[in-house]
């Protein structure tokens, strides 16, 4: 009887395990295996090169690490500014304000728009010659601020990061809002009775209870931003020079530009491992903060 029950249980998890194996684990192993070959993606023969692709990435490919740095910079901006904006707007919409639902809808529009469309629209807005932003800057008497936002190496990466934040803050907004709505209102009422002002309530009730939510948003922001590339390819193509190159663009360049499928797979594995490590660190951090 016990064996039958156990078998039944295994049978229930079998579809999920099969899907996981077929669509996640086997491809991962296969990609790792391909990473040990020199292969152009066309010829049926592959040359086994062992771990030399991995070694080349780790020790010689400066552009790869530059792209990691760029992605890290965009991620840092997203974690700080995108999430701060999302949190502030969620706080505003959590109050009893007029047209609350309208604002909730509006703030969630950017994330559901196509990244390519957003990229192209912002490219027009930021165009150095005829872009709306420069036209407005000139109109309001600040012509000295007008510049080639996407072609200037000083501004290209930050500009891309800002647009990425605009595109992505809606997700954080939604999660923060959901988190804020789970905080029992009685806590605020009790605090008010005890003489706490708005800042005290925020510091002692909202902030501690929102820490797990903030960590979840941070994890999602890191994973989403590190893997960003559609917006970048639409806005700058990774240029000028290597100033807006990100890891996924490098993987694409290896696969499409150089026809080095094996190398691209090795880059994918290394990038995946880096993301896993970052997520693990954040997870450990979130576990510790939950104890609070």
């Amino acid at each position, binding site marked *: 009887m016990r064996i039958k029950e156990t078998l*039944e249980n295994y*049978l*229930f998890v*079998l*579809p999920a395990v*099969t*899907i996981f194996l*077929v669509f996640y684990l086997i491809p991962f192993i296969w990609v790792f295996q391909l990473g040990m070959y*020199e292969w*152009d*993606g*066309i*010829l*049926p023969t592959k*040359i086994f090169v062992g771990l030399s692709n991995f070694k080349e990435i780790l020790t*010689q490919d400066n552009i790869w690490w530059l792209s990691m740095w760029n992605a890290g910079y965009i991620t840092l901006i997203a974690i700080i500014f995108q999430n701060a904006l999302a949190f502030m707007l969620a706080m505003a919409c959590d109050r009893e304000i007029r047209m609350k639902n309208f604002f909730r809808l509006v703030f969630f529009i950017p994330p559901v728009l196509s990244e390519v469309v957003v990229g192209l629209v912002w*490219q027009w807005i930021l*165009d*150095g*010659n*005829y872009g709306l932003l420069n036209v407005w800057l000139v109109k309001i008497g600040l012509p000295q601020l007008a510049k*080639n936002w*996407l*072609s*200037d*190496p000083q501004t*290209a990466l930050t500009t891309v990061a800002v647009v990425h934040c605009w595109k992505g803050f809606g997700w954080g907004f939604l999660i923060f809002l959901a988190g804020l709505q789970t905080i029992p209102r009685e806590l605020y009422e009790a605090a008010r009775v005890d003489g706490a002002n708005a800042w005290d309530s925020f510091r002692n009730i909202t902030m501690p209870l929102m820490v797990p939510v903030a960590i979840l948003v941070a994890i999602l922001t890191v994973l989403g931003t590190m893997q960003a590339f559609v917006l970048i390819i639409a*806005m*700058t*193509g990774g*240029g*000028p*020079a*290597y100033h807006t190159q990100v890891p996924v663009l490098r993987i694409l*360049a290896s696969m*499409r*530009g*150089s*026809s*080095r499928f094996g190398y691209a797979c090795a880059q994918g594995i290394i990038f995946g491992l880096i993301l896993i490590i970052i997520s693990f660190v954040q997870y450990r951090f979130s576990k510790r903060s939950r104890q609070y």
Partner: protein
Amino acid sequence: MAVKFSGCLRGILAFAVLGCFFLCGCASRPVENKNTVVIWHWMTDRQAAFEELSRRYEELTGVKVVFELYAPSEAYSQKIRAAAQSVSLPDIFGILGEKRDFSSFVKAGHILEITPYMLADNGKWKNMLFSKALAVNEFSSDNSYGVLPGIYGVPIDITTIQMVYNKKLLKQLGGNPNKPPATLEDFLALGPKIKASGLQGMVSGWGEVWMVDCLANNYAFNVMGKDKVLATIKGQVPYTDPDWIKVLEIFKQMQDSGILANGLVTMVNKNAEQLFANEKAVFAFNGSWCVNVYKGMNPGLEFGAMLPPAVNSKYPMVIWGGAGSSFLINARSPRKEEAVKFLRWLTDREQQVYLAETTLNLPANKDSLKKISEILAQFADDIESSTHPNIWGVSEFPAVVEALDKGIQSIVIGEKTPAQVAEEVQKIKQRELSKQSNR
């Protein structure tokens, strides 16, 4: 009456449904009609014309030809590679990529060698096509790719990548609308005038780096000649050679003179085409397909074709050109013969004239040139000055090409000097050469 399933049975059913999906996914392709030739391509602007030609061909022969369009070109490129891996390529297809990729397709047995068909009837088919267009699809006996010499593809049109200028704007700047600047000196002298007039100088899709590579190669041929360029690719001449530094300096001179449009380094070609078509830019570096594009954007645009202004007269100015689009026949297709017959018909004069008239691309058939527009004829005149990396017999390492292109972008944005870029490119070249020798 509702049927009740036990939990266990539900699990089995779910697994069975999942199994069915897998089995369906593994099913073989449906058997296609023997009289249907399937063609995969990426040319969105030519689909309507292809469909019309397919209709005419079916009327004539009873053989149905289906043109399946897959765009954008990047997605098409990946689809072809995936189909090659699963040995499910269509009867006819095109590939987008370098000669190295082309050679891999040939070596993997995906492409039919069509030399015997081309040479039949005293080379009638071969002789009616532009030799430069055919050369792109040809592997010579001394090719470095290890491919058996022969012809492996059929060009359906020709492309040249060169410069165009706006006649009206050039006149406004004090130039002769029928005589664009022929020397770099004259070209650069227009820079300050263009800046003062508030116009843009030269626009191009330099955000898609291959166009930078193209112009750099044009100037390399002009500065040092073909032999030295090929010697560089072979690793016999370093990129730090003074001639290469001179080539890189041309880009710095262009930037300093103001002849390059603002934001050129991240400009995609579509934006460049819009700026030129809307008469905001005086010059554009673009392919001959631009005739069709500009006509769509601004039918009244008056422009002319020109070669990039030369630096010296010691070596000729050479532009990239040759086959624009080519079709290849699947060597494993059961309809090889029908495919050959269709491509033979497609490159006949009548069909080529129709394609040239409707799509405004240069025809691959020499006899069809008599019926093309004046501006297309200007592009056609420069075919003799054209070359293409795919006919050089050797290819530069992609990493080196990327370093050169990105280096030129760095020069244009004032981040690096030509000498610095040359040094960096040479470093990567040496790394790639040593990797190659270790294999």
